[in-house]
């Protein structure tokens, strides 16, 4: 601390007072930039969204009359909103479930004494660095009804092309593929970390007891990484319900397809707010989505807590049993 020597030997009491003030006030000074900026730019806009949602908004005139719950009613009675909710959940399920399975398999593959492990880890993480916009641009060309590799291969096999951009379910698969491609390797690494924290002697005693690879995977690995799997599901829920770039760019000319066959909730919000300037309905949509996300988060949390407490008991019993078997 070179600064100490340079300090002038001012009046001791004043220095003591100063030091005391420094000691008391500094912590608040250090945390305040975060709270001020986050309050102004993070929390205030969300709270103010509520205020915006209570007024009528007009493309030309801007803010209009107070309408109370009017915007909420018009959103909740809009078939296009429910269409967007259905699409969002369809895409969300098509991306979460296959992704979780693939990531778990991939993590189990990597959780062995493989050669060149850094190379494999890097290669599966590669898609994560590709921005959603670029992923969407590339996959739009891959999942094209008219040309591209999939249509090319189908033609080679003498099959009809799939109507990717038009058929709702096919378009959901295409968009879910973008999400899956980008996130599977990333989530596999999180699950791999959980697998590596499982004590190896549990596997050893199970192997001694004659449990095969598959058996060990389902009876030891899966139960032990379940909390991490739930974490992965929660984070992909929060992200998955706010999906925007992929469906927006899958058909760059519209907001989710000619018949809104892949319009998601955030894309619906975007269409309300920006082409139409109906900020009231857009804000109401934002609040409804906010509530949906919080609700699903709470449900996830409740489920994970009950599973975690059950698991703790069960795993302890299983380990005890196994150890007893080893000792006797």
């Amino acid at each position, binding site marked *: 601390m070179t600064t100490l020597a340079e300090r002038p030997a001012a009046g001791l009491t004043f220095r003591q007072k100063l030091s005391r003030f*420094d000691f008391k006030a500094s912590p608040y000074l250090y945390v305040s930039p975060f709270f001020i900026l986050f309050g102004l730019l993070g929390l205030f*806009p969300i709270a103010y969204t509520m205020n*915006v949602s209570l007024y009528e908004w007009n493309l030309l005139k801007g803010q209009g009359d107070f309408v109370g719950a009017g915007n909420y009613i018009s959103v909740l009675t809009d078939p296009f909103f429910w269409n967007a909710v259905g699409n969002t959940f369809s895409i969300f399920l098509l991306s979460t479930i296959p992704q979780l399975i693939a990531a778990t398999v991939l993590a189990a593959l990597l959780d062995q004494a493989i050669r060149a492990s850094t190379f494999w880890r890097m290669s599966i993480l590669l898609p994560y660095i590709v921005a*959603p916009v670029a992923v969407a641009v*590339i996959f739009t*060309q891959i999942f094209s009804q008219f040309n591209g590799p999939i249509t*090319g291969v189908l033609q080679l096999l003498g099959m009809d092309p799939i109507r990717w951009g038009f058929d709702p379910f096919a378009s959901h698969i295409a968009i879910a593929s973008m999400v899956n491609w980008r996130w599977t390797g990333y989530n596999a690494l999180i699950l791999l970390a959980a697998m590596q924290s499982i004590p190896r002697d549990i596997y050893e005693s199970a192997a001694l007891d004659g449990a095969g690879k598959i058996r060990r995977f389902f009876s030891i690995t899966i139960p032990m990484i379940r909390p991490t799997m739930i974490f992965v599901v929660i984070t992909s829920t929060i992200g998955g319900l706010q999906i925007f770039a992929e469906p927006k760019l899958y058909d760059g000319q519209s907001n989710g397809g000619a018949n809104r066959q892949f319009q998601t909730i955030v894309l619906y919000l975007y269409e309300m707010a920006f082409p139409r300037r109906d900020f009231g309905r857009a804000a109401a949509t934002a609040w409804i989505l906010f509530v949906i996300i919080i609700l699903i988060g709470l449900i996830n949390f409740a489920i994970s807590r009950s599973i975690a407490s059950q698991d703790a008991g069960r795993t302890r019993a299983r380990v005890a049993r196994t150890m007893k078997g080893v000792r006797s």
Partner: protein
Amino acid sequence: MTTTTEARSIAPSLIVTDGSTPRRARRSYDRPGFLTYALLTAFFVGAVFPLWWSFVIGSRQASDINLVPPAVVPGPNFIANAIKVFETVDFAKALVNSVIISGAITLSVVFFSTLAGYAFAKLRFRGRSGLMVAVVATMAVPTQLGIIPLFMIMSELKWTGTLGAVIVPGLVTAFGVFFMRQYLVDVIPDELIEAARVDGASMWGTFWHVALPAARPAMAVLGLFTFMAAWTDFLWPLLVLGPNNPSVQTALAALNASGGHTPDHSMVLAGALISVIPLLILFVVTGKQLISGIMSGAVKG
């Protein structure tokens, strides 16, 4: 903490798992067979194919996208297609803008997170635990949903079309504060802080000379992920930047829409690849830190 490999060696212990994982014994039960490598190769091909195929089409002529069987070997036209990209949209400006935006956001997030994280981890003050609970609670808040008032504020301030409109809302994150707090709580011994105080160092001096050097590995990891998140962000830049002052992502979206219903596939895919190159370089240089960051729970999804 002056070794060059510090980030690598310390990052795996960044979070709060169940303590140390001893180096694993390589026993017969986890020796992989042929099937493992076959499956890993399949995942590898799946991860690389979209980028490879973009390069194949991006280096040929646009009509080659119609070939049956599909083209799998690159052609000679990548440079020509890349030039077309820069002629169609202002990609050079977009790259500079994205570097400025992501750089500013990263510096700010890392600095303020370290400062607040240090206070929460090592300083005693009234209301500390309550405020920390507030930080954790706000991590779950989807701030993206506040875009409408935020957009109105930016219009009111006449900031739309400027980089500030993108940078300012990203200056702090709750996750960053939480992350730095988790790291610093273990890594700096309380005695070290007290010793500095006893020696007469000011609070700021203690932060600057004791906490900051110790925090460096975690700052690097947080900085990497913050930079990548800012670089890949799309919705908010799309709303406030406008076509004359694009970020990489909004420029790529404009490029994608440039041909209407008859896009130049080769040019669009070449543009997508160009947009990926900066993060690809970052990935090659820092890939190991990214992996250990993710594996130590460094990142929220």
